[in-house]
């Protein structure tokens, strides 16, 4: 039985990808979930994992090749196959499978909610709600791989926090309670309750505040490198780097603090953040959030003991919020340490994060 390995589609904007490196060689036995290929998109470099077990029998597109989404790039065999069979399989395989992808694409909808201010939301899939809250100066696109990876198992709802993305640049006093109230209003507008809420960085703190202030909305929390835990900090190099950035190169410098390997910060990733920061009021809104975070009071007021079940995904190489003091956390929290990521594991180690989130659904 032969299986096609195709160029994945990571996010709405992806049209093609560059094969940076095959991590396995022809003849290797591959298990489901094994890292197969490093693929570079205009957003970020990510690793494609095997969705089937088998032996890698053919590499169709080699290192350095640029292939459209859906294109055949390799072949796996679950039983012994001869070369002629593989050739026939490749010849019979459509050059690119896009129609199916187009349908999936249609499944992801971006909408603008009016909760007294404009809140931008992307939704995909159906089933149990999984709410995704990005961090400071991020937007819902930070969850690109999460949305794509989990929409088969959940109704994934990614929200642009106020002051971010395409949401209104009004953050009020910048308090966690204010941000959480806006998220709650958006979720109510969507008719969502009892959700698994995953929050990254500042979004992690907002998720905690949301669970405390609006308990009916949150059944479980997943905190990804969250701000506001004991033992952690908030790097003002990053916050002020963003708030005071004037040029794209300033933004790039700040974003490179987020990741373990600075080369993963691509031009498109910088462009996306630069475009957001240029919007009227965006940097001013972030300045309000920065000051509020540096004051620290909102974090201190988070009653960790009162939270619903928490899965904490923390990174040992996190330059932005540091490593939390696990001994100071309430008993019962599930803690996962990541070694291969910086502060953006949902992009840097998407497979691992997705697997952890999937387990909560």
């Amino acid at each position: 039985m032969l299986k096609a390995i195709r160029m994945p589609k990571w996010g709405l904007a992806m049209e093609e990808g560059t094969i940076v490196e095959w991590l396995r060689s022809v003849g290797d036995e591959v298990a489901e979930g094994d890292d197969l290929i490093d693929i570079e998109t205009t957003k970020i470099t990510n690793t494609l994992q095997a969705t089937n077990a088998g032996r890698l029998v053919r590499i169709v597109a080699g290192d350095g090749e640029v292939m459209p989404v859906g294109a055949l790039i390799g072949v796996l065999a679950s039983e012994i196959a001869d070369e002629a069979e593989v050739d026939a399989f490749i010849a019979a395989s459509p050059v690119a499978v896009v129609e199916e992808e187009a349908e999936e694409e249609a499944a992801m909808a971006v909408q603008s909610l009016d909760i007294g201010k404009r809140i931008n939301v992307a939704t995909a899939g159906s089933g149990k709600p999984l709410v995704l809250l990005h961090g400071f100066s991020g937007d819902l696109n930070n969850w690109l791989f999460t949305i794509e990876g989990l929409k088969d198992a959940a109704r994934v709802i990614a929200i642009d926090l106020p002051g971010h993305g395409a949401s209104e640049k009004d953050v009020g006093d910048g308090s966690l309670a204010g941000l959480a109230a806006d998220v709650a209003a958006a979720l109510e507008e969507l008719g969502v309750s009892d959700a698994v809420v995953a929050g990254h960085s500042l979004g992690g703190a907002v998720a905690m505040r949301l669970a405390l202030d609006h308990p009916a909305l949150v059944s479980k929390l997943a905190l990804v490198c969250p701000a506001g835990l004991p033992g952690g900090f908030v790097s003002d190099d990053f916050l002020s780097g963003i708030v005071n950035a004037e040029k794209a190169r300033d933004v790039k410098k700040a974003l490179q603090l987020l990741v373990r390997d600075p080369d993963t910060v691509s031009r498109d990733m910088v462009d996306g953040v630069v475009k957001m920061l240029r919007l009227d009021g965006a940097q001013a809104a972030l300045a309000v959030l920065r000051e509020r975070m540096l004051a620290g009071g909102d974090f201190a007021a988070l009653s960790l003991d009162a939270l619903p079940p928490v899965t904490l995904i923390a990174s040992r190489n996190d330059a932005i919020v540091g490593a939390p003091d696990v001994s100071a956390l309430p008993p019962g929290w599930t803690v996962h340490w990541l070694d291969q990521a910086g502060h953006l594991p949902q992009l840097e180690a998407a497979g691992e994060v997705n697997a952890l989130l999937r387990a909560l659904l």
Partner: protein
Amino acid sequence: MPVISYRKAINQALEQEMARDARVILMGIDVGGGAGGSGDVGSVGGVMGVTKGLYPKFGSDRVIDTPISESAIIGAAAGAAVTGMRPVAELMFVDFIGVCFDQIYNQAAKFRYMFGGKARTPLVIRTMGGAGMRAGAQHSQTLHPILTMVPGLKVVMPSSPYDAKGLLTRAIRDDDPVVFLESKSLYDVKGEVPEEAYEIPFGEANVLRDGRDATIVAFGAMVPRAVAAADLLAKEGVKVTVLDPRTTSPLDEEAILDSLDETGRLVVVDESPPRCSLAADIAALAVSQAFDALKAPVGLVTCPHTPVPFAPNLEDAYVPSVARIVEAVKKTL
């Protein structure tokens, strides 16, 4: 994100800034849509339809149809600017600059310096340039080199819908005189443009492609061609950086020199005759500031030293083509 045309992006910037600031007014030939006739004013909006819809929304005090009197249009806009308004004057075709240039380079551009820093002239001159419309020698020029050499002016050449909106917003909010050079051939090009208002700073180049083999610098309508050339080259394994400085004054020299430092090879694509062009200017920058980094002669892809011809085949041959850009890059390798 909404996908809109370059024309609509400019219109949106005008509309949003007019709504935001009552000092912003438009003036020029037919910007309202033909005042004084027996039909409807506002049914058009400039000869290219860029200002369509603004007259009905803002009225004749803010969208001012003028006689065909370019000196008076630009001069009055400069006078209104220096006395507290923020006019956006439309000069229609940049070719018409000849009949009002005094009001631009001797008046508006010099007020601040001549008057010891006491004048503020927040004037925007919107005008369009470039070949491709079979419009002949007096409706097809670019002329940005002439404007770029004038101290006191800022000169903007937007190459995409996103840039057009953000740069025009910046231009309107800027306190200095800005010449905003639209490319006729780009009006129908579409791209993602945020609904919200945003500014793109002047003097910061846009990097459209990353590569370590060569650097292409291109302006305005030449940017999409440079990108197309880069993509063709990439298929042959040649990775080039494409820089769009966005503004010729101020010029992001740092971005050009930084990139040159990495690649050592430079091609400048400029839709203008070669002498005293931006191509020549940037070549001079490279030679005077980064001589040691250069691994090959700088490639200059420009128009010939002729007026813009009319016959379609001649006009097509006049403008730098993707093929010429590719060839110029290869020559540096």
